[in-house]
């Protein structure tokens, strides 16, 4: 019995350890490259449209790189076609949409560090 308890305890500890080292779940972020997005005053239209979408969580706009990164709310996903349409409606052109396994916070930190 003692042996069984000991094995069980070790198994649970092992599970806990593997949970800590497992890679984080994909946050579902998508990075959009946007032509024409050159100033904060005009990029507001994009921000306003995207934050109105119910699935939009954290959002990051980088004018220098012409990038808009959108992370969905937990349990939701980003509909790339829908976001592209919203950015187009705001008056800009999306040239690329790339799903990335990074949070918006990580993308922000990475781009600021450049």
């Amino acid at each position, binding site marked *: 019995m003692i042996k069984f308890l000991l094995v069980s305890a070790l198994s649970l500890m092992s599970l806990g350890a593997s949970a800590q080292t497992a890679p984080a779940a994909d946050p579902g972020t998508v990075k959009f490259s946007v032509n*024409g997005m*050159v100033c904060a005053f005009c990029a507001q*239209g994009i921000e306003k449209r995207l934050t109105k979408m119910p699935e939009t969580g954290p959002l990051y706009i980088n004018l*220098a790189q012409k990038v808009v990164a959108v992370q969905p709310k937990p349990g939701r996903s980003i509909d790339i076609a829908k976001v592209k349409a919203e950015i187009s409606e705001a*008056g800009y052109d999306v040239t690329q949409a790339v799903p990335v396994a990074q949070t918006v916070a990580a993308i922000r930190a990475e781009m600021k560090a450049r």
Partner: protein
Amino acid sequence: MATALLTACGAALALPMGHEDSWMLMLDSTPQSRGLGLNHAVTGTWAPGATLRRWQEPIGHGGARLLRETAGVSLTHRLHRWNLPHAQANLWLVGDAGQVRRQGGHGYAAGRGDYGAMAFMADYETTRVYVGGGLKALRGGEGLRHDVVRVRSGFSFWEAEYEGTQPWFIVEAERTRYGNAAMREGTRFTPMLRFINRRFFVEIGANRDGGMFNLMFNH
């Protein structure tokens, strides 16, 4: 004096309307003029609005001036936008029409009438460089007839974050031709600092007439 006329829509030269479903408030001030404009972007390319202007207009070479005031409705239309990999370029058409009032003095009687104005503008902007220009024709009762050409160019001191404030150095050259040959023509160069912070767009400058200030707020 050339600044007196078009600074009434001075800031609007940079971006005369906001994104769809947004309101744009524009305030302009120089020693000889004040302007207030408001428009609402009903689509991404059309923005009806209203405008008020008040300026002192030269009536000769002796420095005499007459005060004019206008109140009108405006319509702004983005004719075309080019979205380039590192730049944006636009063509704009802005019209306004309404009532003009002239204060009497210097041998002129006070009076009022209708006026109409049409402006064609173009701009090209990257995150570091700005070039823009426009032509405006203003016609109205009580001898109101002005043609204005304006060019602006400048650069940003650095590339700012979206959340940060971006400062620019801009130089404006403006020339006004008055319908009455007795009125002077003039070209003014106005260096200015421009600050953009998300919803706010502020320009502060000075020329030999004095200081000028433009503010735009987009909501």
